[in-house]
Structures are given as C-alpha cells and as structure tokens.
C-alpha cells in the first residue's frame, strides 16, 4: 500500500491531458526506484551509527565490555525500587541528568522522585518539586496544616521497560523498539517527533527533547526516556541512579542471574508492578508500594 502511495505521488503533476499514459508510466517507473533509493540511503545512514537491527531483533552496538562480547540475549535487566528505604534525597535525579545530558529544565526528567503522603482521612497527595532533584522541602510532607499524616513515602519513577510496551506498538515508523535484553530504546535518527509514544505511555516516562545546549543524543525534537543507562549496563556498570543511591533503594541487576541483587529482591520481598491491569508487564518492581499509587 505504501509503495502505491509513493509511486502515485508524482501522478497528479504528470497526468495532465497533454501527457500520454506511456509518459506517466515511464515517469512513475523512474520515480519509484529513485525515491526508494533515497529512502534506503536514508535508512542505511540511520542504522549504521549505533543501532543494528537484524532478523526482527535489535542489538546495541555499544562499545563492548572489557571482559568480552556483550550478548543481549543472555541478560534480562530489571529494577526493584524499595520505597521503604528511599529517603528522597534526589541524588538519582541529579546523577541521571548529568550522565545522560538530560535538559536542565526541572520539568523534563528521565527519572524523578515522588512524595506520597497519606493523610488521616485516607486522602493521598502526591508532589515532586522539580522532579525531586533537589530533595523535598519539609513543608511538602504535610498536605494541610490541620491534617495528621497516616503514612508517607517516596516513590522513585522511571521508564518501566515494559515487556509489552505500548510506546513501541504505536510508533508509526518503528523508531522506538525493545532490545533482546529488555530495554526500550529510541532511535534518534528515525524518530519523527509525533509524540504518540508520550501519549501512549501509561507511566509518563517520556518527554520531547527541546532545542538547547544539553540534549541526551544531540538531537532536539525527538522523544527521550530512561534507558537504564544502556551505555553503562552493557559495559558491566550500574545505571547512574543506582550507582549514587546512598541507601540502595534502587536495586538493579539481571533477572537471568539468580544471585543478582535484583533476583534476590524479587524472590525474597513482596514486589509488585505499577498498573498491572494494563498488561504492560513492567520490568521495574516496587516494594512497600501502597495500592493508591496506581
């Protein structure tokens, strides 16, 4: 169908009454390979940089770890967020911004920290001043002066790296995709900046990169999101946010490794994912999460 559209596009200019059918067909036959050739060239340029797609799977061509070749099929990355230990210091937000060149605008974040306060009357207020990047001021912990607090805790947020990600389903040009090791990435050379993935994400994990000096991939106008610091984890390092967390509230690891901290946490603690009813099957799990967070 798309070929039909491409081939027929030159038609209106050519199909004037003075032109013969033969001329129109000749033009069309010449135009189709020309357009496809240009498009192929464009596609080749788009894929040659740092992302390789083959046989329906995607492999990151990042620099390999010192110990040998990175095999994405051997890993299954996941996070467990321990809301019982998070102190809301915001170092993870700062580290993420620095590591990934996230724009300084406090409204644009790959990861952020929310403060959930449950009052005596069971009402819940949620706040995230500046994405929690500078901690949470004391006055934020009280929803109202006259209300007693029943419960309060911090919820670190980021892309859930869903096994069934709505963002990849809706992208019209396959610019966002899921790697074999379970990370959802955005190809900055394919993204058209339509914002459909932002709209489709149930977890609000994406934003559009504005023009400016600080852009994650040097390309403004595309969708951006947390990648679990893919450039780090494929080298055997921790994501920046987990690296700097002073209380180990962000537990990261490989679910394929039964001895990894994340596997132990998933096995030993009662963990749950956000919005399970949507069937997205997140790879970020939470401990100590109240039901109202959904």
């Amino acid at each position, binding site marked *: *169908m*798309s*070929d*039909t*559209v*491409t081939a027929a*596009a030159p*038609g*209106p200019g050519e199909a*004037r009454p*003075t032109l013969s059918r033969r001329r129109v067909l000749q033009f069309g036959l010449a135009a189709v390979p020309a357009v496809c050739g240009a*498009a*192929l060239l*464009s596609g080749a340029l788009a894929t040659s940089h740092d992302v390789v797609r083959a046989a329906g799977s995607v492999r990151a061509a990042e620099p390999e770890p010192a110990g040998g070749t990175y095999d994405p099929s051997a890993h299954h990355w996941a996070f467990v967020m321990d809301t019982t230990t998070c102190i809301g210091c915001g170092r993870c*937000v700062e580290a993420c911004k620095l590591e990934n060149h996230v724009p300084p605008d406090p*409204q*644009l*974040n*790959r990861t*952020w920290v*929310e403060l959930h306060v449950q009052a005596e009357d069971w009402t819940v207020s*949620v*706040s*995230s001043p500046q*994405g*929690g990047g500078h901690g949470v001021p004391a006055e934020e912990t009280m929803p109202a002066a006259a209300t007693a607090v029943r419960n309060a805790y911090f919820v670190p*947020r980021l892309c859930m790296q869903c096994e069934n990600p*709505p963002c990849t*389903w*809706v*992208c*019209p*040009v*396959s610019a966002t995709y899921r790697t074999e090791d379970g990370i959802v990435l955005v190809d900055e050379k*394919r*993204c*058209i*900046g*339509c*914002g*459909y993935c*932002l*709209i*489709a*994400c*149930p977890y*609000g994990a*994406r*934003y*559009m*990169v*504005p*023009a400016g000096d600080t*852009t994650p991939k040097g390309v*403004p*106008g*595309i969708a951006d999101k947390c990648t679990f610091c893919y450039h780090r984890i494929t080298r055997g390092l921790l994501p920046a946010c987990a690296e700097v967390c002073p209380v180990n509230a962000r537990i990261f690891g490989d679910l394929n490794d039964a001895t990894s901290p994340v596997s132990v946490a998933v096995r030993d603690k009662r963990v749950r994912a956000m*919005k399970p009813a*949507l*069937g997205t099957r997140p790879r970020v799990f939470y401990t100590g999460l109240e039901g109202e967070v959904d």
Partner: protein
Amino acid sequence: MSVHVAGRDLTADPRVVAGALRRRVGAMPRPLRAWYGILVLLCLVGAVGAALSLPPGWEVLGTSPPFEWGILIAAYVFFAITTSGLCLASSLGTVFGIEMFIPLEKRHAILALLCLMTAFGIIALDLQFPVRMVFGAVLSPSPRSPMWWMGVFYGAYLVFLIIEVLSMFTGRWRLHRIACVLSSITAIVAPTTLGAVFGVLSSRPYWHGAFTPPAMVSAALLSGTALLGLVFYVVHRFRLAGFERAGALAIPAIRLLLTIILAVTVLVVGWQTAWGLYGDVPGLSTATAAILVGPLALPFWVLRVLLGLVVPIILLVLPRTRTPAGLAAAACLAFIGLFADRAIFVFAGQVVPDSAVAGVLPSPFAAYVPSLVEISIVVGAFAALALAYTLAERHLPMGEHSGHVVGAFLGSANPAGAADAAAASAVRAAPPTLTAPPMYDGGGVL
C-alpha cells in the same frame, strides 16, 4: 523568457506577470478584492507561524509533556475528518446515484482535496521531522500502529482524490467512476483509522474503546456536510456556476443530510457523556467532569452543545428559517461546533493524566494554552483553504457535467441496463428546466 503550455505562450518575466496581476486585481469587484486581501494577509500570518514551528525542538508551541497534543493535532483531526465527510456526503450522489446529491460532485471533490492537503500541511508542521515520516512509513513500517494505517489510508485517499479530480476535468468518466467509488470507500476507512489512533490507548480512558472510530466517522459526516452547506449557500447567493440546480437540489439535499447527522451527533454526544458519568471509571469520569464542569465546560456547553447542535437543529427545523440563509447559518455554527468538538476530544484525553509525566504532576488538571504560533498556523490553514477554494471556484469549470451521472454506480434501478443508464444520464444531464419552484422542498418536514 516564456513557456509553452497547452498551446499558449506564457511569459515568465516578473514585471510582465506583476503587471498582469495588477490589472486582474484592479478589475475585480471591491468585495472580492477585500476577500482576497484578507485571506492573503491571514495566509502570511500563518506562514510566519509555520516558519517559526519548523526547527525541531523550538519550544514555540503551548504543549508540555503532560499535554503533548495541542490545537494543531485538533486542527489536523478536524480537517482530516472534514475531507472524509465531504466525500461521504457526496457519495450519495456519486456512488449511490441519488439525484439530489449529484450537484455536490465537483465542488466536494475540490474541497476534499484541499482539506486533505491542509490537514497534511498542519500535521507536517506539528511533526518535528515530517520528511522522516514519509521514508520511515515505507522503510520501517509498523503495521501494529494505528498511526501507520492512518497514513496508509489517507495517502491512498489523496491518490484517489487526485485521480477523481483530474478525471473529472479531463472527461475520463470510466476512470472517474472507479475513483469515486474508491475514494468513498477510503473516506469511510480513513477516519476510523484516525479514531483508532486514539481508541487503542488503554492508558487514556476517555479515548479508549471501540466507540471512538465510528464516532469519528459521524463527526466526519457532520463537518463535511456543514462545509458543503456553507459553500452551496455561497454558490446560490452569488449565482455561481450551476446555481440553479444548487438551489433546487443541492441545498435541500444538504439540509436533509445535515439535519439527520445533527440528530445522530446529539445521540453520540449524549451517550459519550452518559458513558463517562456512569460509575466512577478512573480517568474517564474525571475527564467527563472536566468537560461538563471543569476547564473544558465553556467550549463544551457554548460551542459544542448550544451553538454547534441546538441552534443549528432549530434553524433547520423551524419553517421560518428553512431558507438558504438559514441553512448557511446552521452549517456555519455546526462547522464551528465541530471544530470545538474535536478540540475538546483531543484535550479531554490529556486533561486528566493518571500519572506524573517526566516528573511533572498536573493537579487537578493538566494545563494547556495554545501559543500564538499555534493559533496563527490554524488561522492560516483556514485562510489557505478558503483562498485555494476561491481560486478554484473562479478559475475551474464548476458547472455540472454528464459524467457524474454515469458515475452513479449503485443507484440505478437497472445497473445492468446500459441503455437505461445512458438514457437516465441524458435526462439528468440536460440543462435544468426550472419551471418548478427554484427551491425544491422535497415534501415532508425536512
């Protein structure tokens, strides 16, 4: 320097062209000159807005992470469904052979083509990388994405419309007949794919559901019919080509169709509202509250319900206002109401995010105010459409022809009887014999 086109030598000397243009403009009636002047001015305003929106990442739009789709998407949806609605309305004549609707054919095709190009222009300005869209849709297609299917069907619709228009003006009736049928089929499918763009999103309860695609088709039929009502009033009022049959057939036909589709729209809006109020579905009930009593209440009650539905229905039904001017007023209000409706639809899905977005927590509603750039693009789009259509109306042969009746594909009592069809064609194509009253009432209430 000159070029030879269609047997005529046309000069390309700028001074000669400017002189000729000046003479043409000088010879125009003053109101027409003012109309052109206003439209050109608004187009220039739109062009400035468009230029500012081109560089990727320039924050000239009023959108934000929690409210990513603004008035440009609403305008795109509006023009995209209008182009479909034009074809759906006129298919009653071009495909089903109902004589009342046959005078719509030429004008609907031109309008549909221009509306579709306007829609494409707006979406190109909203996309950060529109060229990648063209290549990406072909080279890395995503059949799981409703947006991809929307591109496929609207792309096909563009091709069919171009063939329909070209064959109409070059007298290739067999090709024209096929193009009419194909464009009419595509005109139904395309808005359903557009509805699916919103309807598949389970994280947006207001949009989510199988109800959204057919609701988009009913909205398409309303906007297309309303635009035809406006245009055919102008044809009737200014006695443009084919005004006799416009007054005798097209205007009553449009009045009938507009009344029916307005009644259908009342049901659609009513059930959408009831659906949102029933129970307490997270996201859906809050979005409905935002429409009924929240930040979207004013456009909903004033533009959508009162001016967009109630007043037009009254104008169409009351005997005193069952005039061409009454139809024009009803069509104009329904058209404006439909634009408000699509904007409310797009905004309501985002006004109550059920999650923080990139660290921003909208409370209680996500805020969005269209920027001047967005408004100028939308205004410029309407002006460009009006300017292009005015030029087409003045410079293309808009009178009816015999081919459209041959194109009445499904309506013939005896489709296999070519002789009958030819005879019917000859009768219908004959110059109008207006011994009958100039306004065809058709009997009945409508």
